[in-house]
């Protein structure tokens, strides 16, 4: 592996460019490089691992029991990549992926305050997942963070919240994080479980499959450990963060009764959804996944998107977890090698067969978890009008409902023109799913019918100065001559 710290040191063109150095990106890069392809692995974090294996090579948390054995498994992926010739660019933001006219792709990159265009013949987007927005009144107060954020700070900096900490929401990560933070010595005063009780009814049909899944033992262990030690409260139907300049408490409703729990940190989580900004902006088709209740890029069995030459591997193409992400990266890389003529179709299929078997195993039980931990309606489409939905432009749920009904706005792209939701720097990452739910609710349709934001590059802002100084590419020069 060759680590690149300066943008000028990148080549003009690579066989494959892979975006994201989490499990999917790491294994795709390793597999492609092992097949003799020139590989660029670009990642915006300072060290490899993505979020699940965040800071695995640099973490100050040396007591392995704190983060658990699943975390340390990620080391093998990095060790494998290190044995290859792949080029790894940390701290490198990919702000655009677009097809060029020659059948390849042009990537817009920023590294160290400088931008550049680099060409690639094949693209694998391994941009992973993000936490599903959890809009409640007061969630913009400093001191309110996502549960994943607390986990990242723990992994990468060895920090835990210093005061009274409340964790709220639903999903397996809630238990995992509660356990990790408790092991690291945090003062957890409440774990507020919002899982709707009737989800059990919907999930029960998928239970037999779950019984045979790798999640079962892991989940039971997490659950019993966390529940045994921590102040769990189930059946939470409403949450609001309180405070003026910073969070001072959380108002909780359960079983019809409301109380306020004083706290210094509130950590929110209700599952993860694919990070689709780059694939959407690149023009890849996407569809609404009714089970995972999120927009997901459309991919085939090889994780190829609707744009030939762009594959989407890992959780960015639908939530499957870390283990499946690595396997999906592997399969996408094999298909890219086939597209580049490095492997025949038969060779590709043969090499992919054992990985596919593993992938099927790793996804067993997923449906049960998806159904069980589907967030409650009230936390997908916040009922309180004053709840901020678009954090960047400070647009509320009430404004969105009103505009949808009064002006007959039927989709999120039209909504932007009236309220500017989704037009701030995060480009809808923290409001898109909620805006869609609210519009769908007003018009009594499925989110599938409202559509999603059409996202625009740069998917991360670049400065005007960076853009003005963009060096012309050899490719662009050739295009002019031709």
């Amino acid at each position, binding site marked *: 592996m060759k680590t690149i710290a300066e943008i000028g040191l990148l080549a003009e063109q690579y066989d494959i460019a892979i975006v994201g150095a989490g499990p999917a990106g790491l294994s795709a890069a390793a597999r492609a490089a092992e097949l003799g392809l020139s590989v660029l692995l670009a990642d*915006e*974090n*300072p060290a490899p691992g993505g*979020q699940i294996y965040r800071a695995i090579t*640099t973490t*100050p*948390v*040396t*007591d392995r029991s*704190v983060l658990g054995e699943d975390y340390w498994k990620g080391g093998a992926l990095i060790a494998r990549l290190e044995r290859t010739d792949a080029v790894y660019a940390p*701290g490198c*933001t990919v702000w655009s992926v677009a097809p060029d006219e020659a059948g390849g792709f042009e990537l817009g990159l920023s590294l160290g*305050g400088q931008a550049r265009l680099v060409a690639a013949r094949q693209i694998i987007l391994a941009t992973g997942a*993000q*936490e599903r927005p959890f809009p409640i009144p007061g969630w*913009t107060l*400093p*001191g*309110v*963070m*996502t549960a*994943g*954020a607390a986990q*990242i*700070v*723990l992994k*990468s*900096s*060895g*920090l*835990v*919240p*210093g*005061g009274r900490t409340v964790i709220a929401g639903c999903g397996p990560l809630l238990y995992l994080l509660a356990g990790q933070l408790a092991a*690291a*010595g945090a003062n957890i005063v409440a774990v507020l479980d919002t899982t709707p009780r009737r989800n059990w009814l919907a999930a029960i049909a998928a239970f037999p499959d779950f019984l045979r899944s790798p999640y079962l033992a892991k989940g039971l262990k997490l659950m019993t450990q966390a529940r045994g030690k921590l102040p769990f409260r189930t059946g939470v139907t409403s949450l609001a963060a309180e405070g003026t*300049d*910073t969070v001072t408490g959380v108002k909780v409703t359960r079983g019809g009764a409301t109380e306020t729990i004083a706290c*210094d*940190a509130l950590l929110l989580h209700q599952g993860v959804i694919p*990070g689709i900004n780059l694939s959407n902006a690149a023009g890849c088709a996407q569809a609404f996944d009714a089970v995972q209740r999120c927009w997901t890029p459309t991919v085939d069995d090889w994780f190829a998107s609707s744009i030939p030459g762009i594959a989407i591997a890992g959780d960015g193409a639908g939530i499957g977890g870390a283990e499946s992400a690595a396997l999906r990266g592997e399969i996408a890389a094999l298909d890219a090698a086939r597209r580049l003529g490095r492997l025949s179709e038969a060779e590709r299929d043969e090499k992919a067969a054992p990985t596919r078997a593993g992938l099927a195993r790793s996804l067993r039980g997923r449906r049960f978890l998806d159904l069980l931990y589907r967030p409650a309606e009230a936390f997908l489409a916040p009922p309180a009008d004053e709840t901020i939905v678009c*954090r*960047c*432009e*400070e647009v509320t749920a009430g404004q969105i409902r009103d505009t949808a009904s009064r002006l007959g706005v039927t989709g999120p792209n039209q909504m932007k023109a009236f309220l500017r939701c989704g037009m*701030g*720097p*995060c480009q809808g*990452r*923290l409001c898109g799913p909620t805006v869609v739910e609210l519009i769908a609710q007003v018009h009594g349709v499925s989110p599938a019918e409202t559509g999603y934001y059409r996202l625009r590059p740069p998917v*991360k*802002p670049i*400065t005007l*100065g960076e853009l003005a100084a963009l060096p012309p590419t050899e490719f662009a020069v050739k295009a002019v001559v031709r």
Partner: protein
Amino acid sequence: MFRPIAEAKASDGTRVAPVGFTFDGRAMTARAGDTVAAALLANGVQACRQTPVSGAPRGPYCMMGVCFECLVVIDGIGNRQGCLVPLRDGMRIQTQAGRRQPDEVQS
């Protein structure tokens, strides 16, 4: 407010020298290897910007480059995502103001 679970140590067990920086002029230290946003959290900084719309205070929310709540001015350059920038010795970090004045815009 965040606190370290243990004293920062290198892999050979020696104590690692902290990194010095300023936030809005106040001298602070953090662990080498922290991001700017983590370093601020470790120093009890909850709010690092004001929104351009209402001027409300905001602080780091996702720590993974998604939410843009941890925007700060670093060494005179505004709108940097603090959770993605590694802390360096001597960094001058400032609150990202909401409605900025022209003289604060830097090239």
